[in-house]
């Protein structure tokens, strides 16, 4: 076994480097399915680098909240990632109850994003904030209920154990519940990351946006950080789904991490395929799908409570 410090370093490196690639792969998949060549998968890295080099204009009506929001977004996602095991190997930080911290780190980031949106005083951004808060009220229970199933199955309150080597064994005893959890969490990943059918990350129509409209006033480095933070969030939430759905735990760091990274890339392709095949939901129907995800997770809890 490698010393845990090295594992932690690899963990952190993957977390910091990989996320924009996922965004690039989604875009590339969509392009391929639309018959276009598409931008290279490295494009998000270039975009972020470009934005970080730019200057920015900041509205005089805004306060420090406006600039704090992108920083909090990235910080929250990085801290959350430190709680999450990759490929079944213990996360750099773990303690009993870390799953609650994990869930609410995203709550903190959301609080700042919405506050920054309201800070601008724009009618659009307020509308986006209202939508974000409404929908996340419904996405959060689905995430927590999904985690409750794992808590019951593994009798642990730490993500490192819940998503660790025991997951494979759980598929033998509680496959039905886990299938429901995977579907429910996948819906949460799509909703939380503003993917179709919940939101359209490529649209330019501000009246239809949920997340993008809240960051309309950010530009330059702040926007670059928001894009990077969004990619991190996709990575971290996606990693939970992958940890449950691909329970390959060989014990070899290289193999496990290889499988993990491969599965993450596969997840991106899947998101790209879904985005290519369906239209967006009517905004009013978004809650129905999220409630559906909550119900699935609820059934999973009921199944695992037998």
């Amino acid at each position, binding site marked *: 076994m490698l010393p845990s410090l090295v594992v932690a370093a690899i963990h952190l490196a993957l977390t910091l480097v990989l996320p924009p690639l996922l965004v690039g792969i989604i875009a590339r998949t969509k392009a391929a399915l639309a018959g276009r060549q598409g931008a290279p998968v490295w494009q998000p890295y270039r975009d972020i680098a470009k934005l970080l080099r730019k200057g920015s204009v900041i509205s005089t009506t805004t306060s420090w909240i406006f600039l704090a929001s992108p920083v909090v977004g990235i910080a929250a996602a990085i801290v959350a990632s430190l709680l999450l095991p990759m490929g079944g190997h213990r996360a750099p930080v773990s303690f009993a109850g870390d799953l609650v911290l994990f869930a609410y780190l995203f709550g903190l980031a959301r609080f700042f994003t919405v506050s920054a949106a309201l800070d601008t005083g724009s009618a659009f951004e307020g509308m986006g904030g209202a939508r974000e808060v409404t929908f996340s009220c419904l996405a959060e229970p689905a995430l927590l209920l999904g985690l409750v199933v794992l808590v019951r199955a593994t009798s642990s309150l730490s993500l490192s154990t819940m998503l660790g080597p025991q997951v494979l064994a759980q598929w033998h005893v509680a496959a039905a519940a886990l299938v429901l959890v995977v579907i429910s969490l996948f819906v949460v990943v799509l909703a939380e990351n503003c993917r179709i059918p919940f939101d359209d990350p490529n649209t330019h129509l501000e009246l239809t946006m949920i997340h993008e409209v809240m960051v309309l006033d950010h530009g330059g480095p702040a926007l670059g950080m928001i894009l990077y933070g969004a990619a991190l969030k996709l990575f971290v939430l996606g990693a939970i789904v992958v940890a449950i759905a691909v329970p390959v735990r060989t014990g070899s760091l290289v193999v496990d991490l290889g499988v993990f990274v491969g599965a993450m890339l596969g997840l991106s392709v899947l998101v790209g395929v879904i985005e290519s095949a369906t*239209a967006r939901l009517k905004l009013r129907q978004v809650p129905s799908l999220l409630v559906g995800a909550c119900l699935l997770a609820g059934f999973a809890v009921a199944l695992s409570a037998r």
Partner: protein
Amino acid sequence: MSAGKLARTRNGVPLPRASVPRLDVGELRRAVLDAASRGDRLVALFGVPCEPGRVELHAVLADDSEATLRVGTAVVDEAYPALTPECPQAHLFEREIAEQWSVVPEGHPWLKPVRFARPARSGRDPFGRKEGEAPVAGVMDYYRVEGNEVHEVAVGPVHAGVIEPGHFRFQCHGEQVFHLEISLGYQHRGVERALVGGPDKRSVHYAETLAGDTTIGHATAYCHVVEALGQTRVPARAQALRGVALELERLANHTGGLGALANDVAFQPTAASCGRLRGDFLNLTAAVCGNRFGRDLVRPGGLSSDVDEALVARMLERLDAAMRDVRDSVELLWDTASVQARFEATGIVSVDDAEPLGLVGVAARACGLERDVRRDHPSGVFRLAYIPVSVWQTGDVFARAYVRWLEVQRSAVFVRDLLESLPAGPTRVPAAALAPGSLCVALVEGWRGELAHVGLTDEAGRFAAYKVVDPSFHNWSGLAMALRGQDISDFPLCNKSFDLSYCGFDL
């Protein structure tokens, strides 16, 4: 039966201005209301300057069932009793008259500027602005809903996409729209005024650029006016090719529009391919005249270019190939549940709203109103060849999309038939000088709907006035109605389903 006091004519048939009855304004009002109550549509209502300081109102109505047009005039000074309270389809025309001529339509319930242009005649400002104050686009009193939970959202005039400028003001309760007010005029260029004194070298170019996506349609309508006033007989081959060009314009815009609708609901397959296929149709037009939008093609007296047999064969082949792809791509829209969930029951305009508002074209046909100039007031090749009217009943986004799809299919068949049986002969004859003291109304069914051009000549055979009514002029009100009670997030989709022109409205 006061409608009988109006002069009768037909699409593209000139009248001596002397034979158009000059009524008392009360009589004209009664005649127009009477005709409208019997189902006539108000095609145009506009002012023309006459004796010093006065304005002659011209009303043009269309009786679709008898293919006739009715025209009447009346002279007004400072004010006249508005038609709008009893005839809502006059509402924008009367606001336009107030703006252009400082004539107050008394009793108009919604008297606001249309294009924020300076009046062409001095007088009391009908909108209560201070003397000498230059109008600024978008600066007016907007309708407001007050209340704790009501909020206002303002969109534009600068939009996120590469589209034209327009200002939209929503009164919302949460996600629900109570009311949408649309304020345009940012692209007002004064084309109508520039056409006065013509026709000259520039006139046809002005007509082509009234609305760039309706180049063929507007140029054809303009040429119909000039040819009718000059008694120029356009060769049959030119008329047939104009029909081909008009329908190709419809094919390109409808295909592009269906793709844009798919894009607005984030449905990638159709969005991606329709964008390309629109180009295929535009390229067919380019094959005829060298320009994808048909600039420099339609000219008074005929066409600037001709096609040979080899080109016709190539066009037929490319048309068939494009139609095969369009069919695959568009039918995916109707077969995909997630798309239908967005289209159906979104942005409904009832026929009870559409008719009084005087909607035209696709927007009207999607509400079940069978209005199509190609059938009701045929001109050019449409007098000889019939193209079925495409109608749907539900008045929602789906209906507007589906009517466009029906029209794509029918236009493709029509173009094919025309190309296969093109009459021989020249494509252009010299256009004669215009008859003096005459009036002519030309209606053409552009891809959005009815394009109305009214030309009036003076004693020297020059345009004394030229009135253009783009279908967008009627239909923007339909969009505002469609948004009542809708989600604000569905506005872009509703807007795209109407697909209206800003510059065609702003002129």
